[in-house]
């Protein structure tokens, strides 16, 4: 049958969590035909509304700002930033770590949960993966941009140079290059491999010949043959298995940029796990910020259900608790170390120093705000989730700022102590990168199936087969 896509608002969930959960708590509530489902999920590709255009213009302006500040920086030199000696790193590296971290949630959701057979991920993994890629594209820019001579960034890559000089693999920065490029590559491969069947659907669903051709090219001639599906499934599992260690490794490597140094506030063994948790945490926040408007704008409440929001909120809370633990351990270790500089950094400079206000904002956003997710009411309230997500993103940016700046501005010798003040260029780059991220994401939503159609269909039929209850293994 050809039922039009139904936009049914699921009623408010009961306060008590009865089990089995009522149907509106399903991971999928679409009851139309596959055809209808396809129409719904591909609707954005056929055209977009005023909201999209508004956001597009905004983020396009942001992107222009980004382009301008980058050009200005390269033309004039990074003296146009607020950095100095001792604070030789600040905004650029903060932005880098922040964006990389955001990327992690994508991989976590798509790869990690795939291995764990968390089917509910089907409705949001595509968005999450795209987010990862765009975040990494931003992140990758900053380390290059912050160089004194950015045009020589390729000297960090081991290519046979005429002078016979090579990178120094004892430094964490070549590790960074390796980790980030690998991460970006694998993310793109994983994303595209998963996308091909849906591109085929888009091809076959396209209205105009032109669109059919374009999607046809990207669909590579996918026909959904049994062989193809089988190999595809194997490949996806393999890719997921390879991407999962990246979730753990990439931000661990990023954290080494700091912890291999002997600077108080950087020189800490807890950094790798601490950074990974923080990364996934901020990523989840960003996913919330992306899917909440999406499901509202395209009426996907029956595809991205309260069940998803609830799950996301729970995961966010878990990450918040892990992060809090990391904070506490950090403080304990610095106290336990008896090292005067360590203690000064953690107990004087950060909570009471020049940047103390940002420190406490960070604590509020990262530790206190997420505690509201102990209540189901908040876990499923779109407004609350959105606000919390925004707060967490701010908190996580500040966390990196605090780690970098409040360690550098008060290092060993008091004679060289000096504070850091950002310039308009610093802010321009930060907000510009947000603009670029928004632009890329909007284009993605406009031209690429942002829900994994085939996976959702498969999921639907599996759900039907098990009369709507949770599934054990996907394939009987």
């Amino acid at each position: 049958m050809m039922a039009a896509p139904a936009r049914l608002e699921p009623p408010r969930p009961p306060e008590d969590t009865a089990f089995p959960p009522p149907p509106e708590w399903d991971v999928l509530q679409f009851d139309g035909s596959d055809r209808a489902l396809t129409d719904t999920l591909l609707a954005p590709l056929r055209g977009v509304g005023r909201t999209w255009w508004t956001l597009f213009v905004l983020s396009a302006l942001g992107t222009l700002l980004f382009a301008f500040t980058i050009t200005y920086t390269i033309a004039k030199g990074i003296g146009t930033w607020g950095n100095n000696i001792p604070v030789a790193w600040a905004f650029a590296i903060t932005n880098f770590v922040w964006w990389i971290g955001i990327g992690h949630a994508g991989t976590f959701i798509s790869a990690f949960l795939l291995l764990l057979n968390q089917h509910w991920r089907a409705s949001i993994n595509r968005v999450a993966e795209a987010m990862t890629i765009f975040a990494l594209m931003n992140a990758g820019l900053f380390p290059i941009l912050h160089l004194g001579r950015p045009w020589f960034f390729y000297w960090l890559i081991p290519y046979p140079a005429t002078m016979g000089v090579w990178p120094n693999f004892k430094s964490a920065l070549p590790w960074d290059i390796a980790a980030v490029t690998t991460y970006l590559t694998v993310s793109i491969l994983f994303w595209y491999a998963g996308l091909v069947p849906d591109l085929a659907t888009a091809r076959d669903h396209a209205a105009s010949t032109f669109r059919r051709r374009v999607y046809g090219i990207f669909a590579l001639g996918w026909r959904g043959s049994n062989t193809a599906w089988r190999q595809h499934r194997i490949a996806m599992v393999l890719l997921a298995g390879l991407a999962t260690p990246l979730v753990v490794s990439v931000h661990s490597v990023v954290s080494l940029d700091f912890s291999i140094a002997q600077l108080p506030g950087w020189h800490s063994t807890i950094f790798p796990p601490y950074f990974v948790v923080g990364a996934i945490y901020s990523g989840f926040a960003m996913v919330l910020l992306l899917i909440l408007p999406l499901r509202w704008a395209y009426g996907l409440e029956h595809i991205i259900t309260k069940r998803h929001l609830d799950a996301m909120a729970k995961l966010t809370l878990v990450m918040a608790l892990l992060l809090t633990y990391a904070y506490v351990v950090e403080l304990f270790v610095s106290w336990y170390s008896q090292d005067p500089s360590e203690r000064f950094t953690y107990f004087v400079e950060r909570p009471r120093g020049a940047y103390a206000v940002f420190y406490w904002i960070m604590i509020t956003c990262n530790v206190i705000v997420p505690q509201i997710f102990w209540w189901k009411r908040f876990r499923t309230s779109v407004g609350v989730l959105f606000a919390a997500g925004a707060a967490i993103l701010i908190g996580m940016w500040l966390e990196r700022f605090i780690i970098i700046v409040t360690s550098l501005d008060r290092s060993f010798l008091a004679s060289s102590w000096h504070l850091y003040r950002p310039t308009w260029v610093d802010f321009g780059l930060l907000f510009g990168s947000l603009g670029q991220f928004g632009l890329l994401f909007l284009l993605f939503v406009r031209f690429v199936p942002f829900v994994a159609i085939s996976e959702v269909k498969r999921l639907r039929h599996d759900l039907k087969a098990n009369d709507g209850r949770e599934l054990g293994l996907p394939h009987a």
Partner: protein
Amino acid sequence: MTDASWGCRMRDTRWPSGAYAAEFSSERHFAGAVAILRGQGYSKIETYTPYPVPRIEAVLPESPSVLPPLVLLAGFAGGLIGYWIQWYTNAVSYPLNIGGRPAHAAPAFFIPTFEGTILAAATAAFVGLFALLRLPQPWHPMFEINGFERASIDRFWIAVDATDARGSGDLTPRALEALKPLRVVRVPGSA
């Protein structure tokens, strides 16, 4: 073509000598049909579905995929190359006194080695997948069928090679008709 050669590599060819295809509207009906055809001894069968239908995988046997061993090998190679580059550049080609550290610093070399492993393995998985599937492949006889595009939306197709030993003469189309599909069509040979 011997049975042994019916590995994943040879399946879903461009039907050199043409094929017969049947269209179904429900997964269950379609899966049953596949089972019946197999029961009748048809072996050169391929199916086209909008989403994976695991149930028929049991019915259509295939030789184990070569992807996992391929990825494993690529991973090892990537790791080795990764470590070798670091060892050669820092300890052999141009060793320097860097902060009094040994030129060959295995602990420091671990991370790029790991990244090399993942990168090579992932690339192998991706490239391997599409190589095995002979993709990209912009044209295919099935695309000639009017309405085949619904195979990626909500229709399920079965195609049987016209040269299938079991289906000499017009047996195959009849066998297909017997499965009560929406329709049966002749797929022109591409050769």
